[in-house]
């Protein structure tokens, strides 16, 4: 009986602190979102900041928001290391997926631009093609 009692009391204590952390997380997410939208408006109105810098900030802040949702709302920060690792390690594949696919898209675009009909061919290609035409 005594034991159960301390268990409940402990539970109560945890409850109190984590409701606070829930609302703290909510405010963090809200403030970040408002900040992002604010930056987007600054860019629209005044062209504030280079596009690449703005995009970098947006991606970083998205990852920050993702961290808070997974760590606090999904409670992963409070799970044991085994669970954290088994869930997060496979997601590292995304690092390569993103780099590889976006680089591929970019190279595709460059090829389309450079090899589009009507585009002057680079000199080296032009010379090697010449004999074949005549």
């Amino acid at each position: 009986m005594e034991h159960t009692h301390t268990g409940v009391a402990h539970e109560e204590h945890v409850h109190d602190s984590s409701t606070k952390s829930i609302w703290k997380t909510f405010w963090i997410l809200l403030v970040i979102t408002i900040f992002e939208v604010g930056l987007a408006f600054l860019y629209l109105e005044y062209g504030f900041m280079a596009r690449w810098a703005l995009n970098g900030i947006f991606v970083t802040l998205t990852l920050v928001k993702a961290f808070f949702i997974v760590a606090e709302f999904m409670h992963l920060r409070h799970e044991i290391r085994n669970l954290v690792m088994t869930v997060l390690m496979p997601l590292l594949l995304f690092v390569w997926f993103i780099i590889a696919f976006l680089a591929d898209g970019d190279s595709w675009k460059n090829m389309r631009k450079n090899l589009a009909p009507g585009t002057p061919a680079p000199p080296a290609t032009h010379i090697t093609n010449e004999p074949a035409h005549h």
Partner: protein
Amino acid sequence: MDTAVTAKKKWWSGGHSPFNVSYGKLMMWYFLMSDAFTFGALLISYGTIRFMSTSWPDPNEVFHAFPGMGHTNLPLVFVSLMTFILIMSSVTMVLAVHAGHMRDRKAVAKWMSWTILGGIAFLSCQAWEWTHLHHAGAWWGHNPFLNADGTVASTNFTNFFFTITGFHGLHVTSGVVLNIVILANVLKGTYEERGHYEMVEKVGLYWHFVDLVWVFVFTCFYLL
């Protein structure tokens, strides 16, 4: 159920879950991880196509309407409202999980109801946005919007937009259905009898994941 964590516990010696969670919760985590790859694949293919395009429609030109505001140019406002609704419903979901830890049936029911309401509000917003875009002539295979540089755009933009927000909306819909099922069980007293509200936690994990995906969709489609 999970056991107390002590510093020198041998997690892999058997007799208990090496992950310190129940089977159901662990499987929910693995499902969400696989779902993250599905959404990741969709978003990365969207990024690839966008990177390979010489120009792309400006999201602020496309998404600038707000219900009841006619043709007023309000970029980002409506989608910010949708984001707020989803974050809010995530908060009410954690509060429901919390009430479950406290074994407070009434509070669980109350917060679950708010979460369901938030989910329905989000879906209504999305239905409005889709209808609005559809009236503007946008749909799978139809793209009335010009590229940012004034050239005619391909249908890639609308195809990806409707596929990805649609797939996310489908997740929200099934989340709302799951939440309703769990709420019914809470009201029936199923979990009170069982002695714990772990089902609320599992459905909560799914619900937060839906919110998490929206954070990425919001960035990829509306901000970048």
